């Protein structure tokens, strides 16, 4: 983006109740005030550097440290993957107003049980808003599923 405003105006035109002489004067005002649009070079960067450190601290996912044998680690990862997949499914279903479902290994869907909701809430509490995470990253359920499938395969190849 340029530092200099290029002088193109973006205001809405005068509507009804204003006559031709109003439009003419309004247009003249726009031209006359145009020179106020010259912005000092580098100002947006200076503003950014002055303010960026004041932003809220970025929410960082808690680090996952897996201990134990490789088989145990895989079990933990699979549980995690399953939970994230369910959270994504719940978030997606909620977003489009469907009955909350979760994917099963066979690819069918079943209504989420109270226990599933409890897991989702637990996840939500520990990771912030999981649904927001997926929205922010622009990921769809398919993207997530694809990522998770790769993760599971990578885990299995460790055996």
């Amino acid at each position, binding site marked *: 983006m340029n530092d200099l405003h290029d*002088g193109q105006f973006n205001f809405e035109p005068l509507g009804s109740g204003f006559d031709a002489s109003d439009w003419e004067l309004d247009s003249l005002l726009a031209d006359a005030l145009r020179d106020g649009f010259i912005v000092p070079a580098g100002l947006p960067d*200076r503003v950014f550097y002055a303010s960026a450190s004041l932003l809220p601290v970025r929410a960082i996912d808690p680090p996952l440290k897996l201990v134990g044998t490789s088989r145990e680690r895989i079990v933990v990862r699979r549980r995690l993957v399953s939970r994230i997949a369910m959270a994504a499914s719940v978030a997606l279903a909620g977003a489009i107003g469907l009955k909350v479902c979760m994917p099963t290994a066979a690819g069918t869907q079943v209504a989420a049980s109270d226990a599933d909701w409890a897991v989702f809430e637990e996840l939500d509490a520990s990771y912030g808003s999981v649904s927001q995470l997926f929205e922010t990253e622009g990921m769809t359920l398919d993207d997530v599923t694809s990522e998770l499938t790769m993760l599971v395969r990578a885990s299995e190849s460790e055996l």
Partner: protein
Amino acid sequence: MTDQPTKDELRTLLRAASTGDQNAWRQIVHAYTPRVFSLIRSHCGDADLSEEITQSTFCTIAVKIGQYDELGKFEQWLFRIAMNRLRDEMRRRKRQANPVEHDTLTALIGAGKRSDNDDSDVDPVLRQALREAMQQLSDADQQIIYLRHCAELSFKRIAETLEQPLGTVLARQHRALKKLRELLERHEQDPPEQ
């Protein structure tokens, strides 16, 4: 005009910035700094002060963005903070300043608002006359014209920013144009001595 994010893009950027995403914040700052600066600059005529207030406005937004609830009113929020900052600063300066004759003040304002753009299509005499006429409008009427032409807000957003009914804003704009026209006609009939 500097690239402006669409409504959806802005929503995404604000959400990301509210969780500390500096890249999103940079895009917001680059998109809105020119408009905030132009609004303040056209009001006070002082480039240094305008830069200071622009910076202060974005610092306030950065601090509060975590609590901001995006309801499609970001621009109104941003420009309201900018105008409040400007008003506070002008009050502070007024308290500290020694009394100055009105003519001297008008001349100073004129000097501060000198053209930064020699390529402007408007006749310099007419432009100067228009600026002097603008100074004779009430602060409230000037504010609407600057919000419209410098901050590029729609009348609906101006109304929301100023927390006034839309009808009041439109009536003020109409009245301001009428008064400006009268002042310009008077200027044409009886131009000031050079």
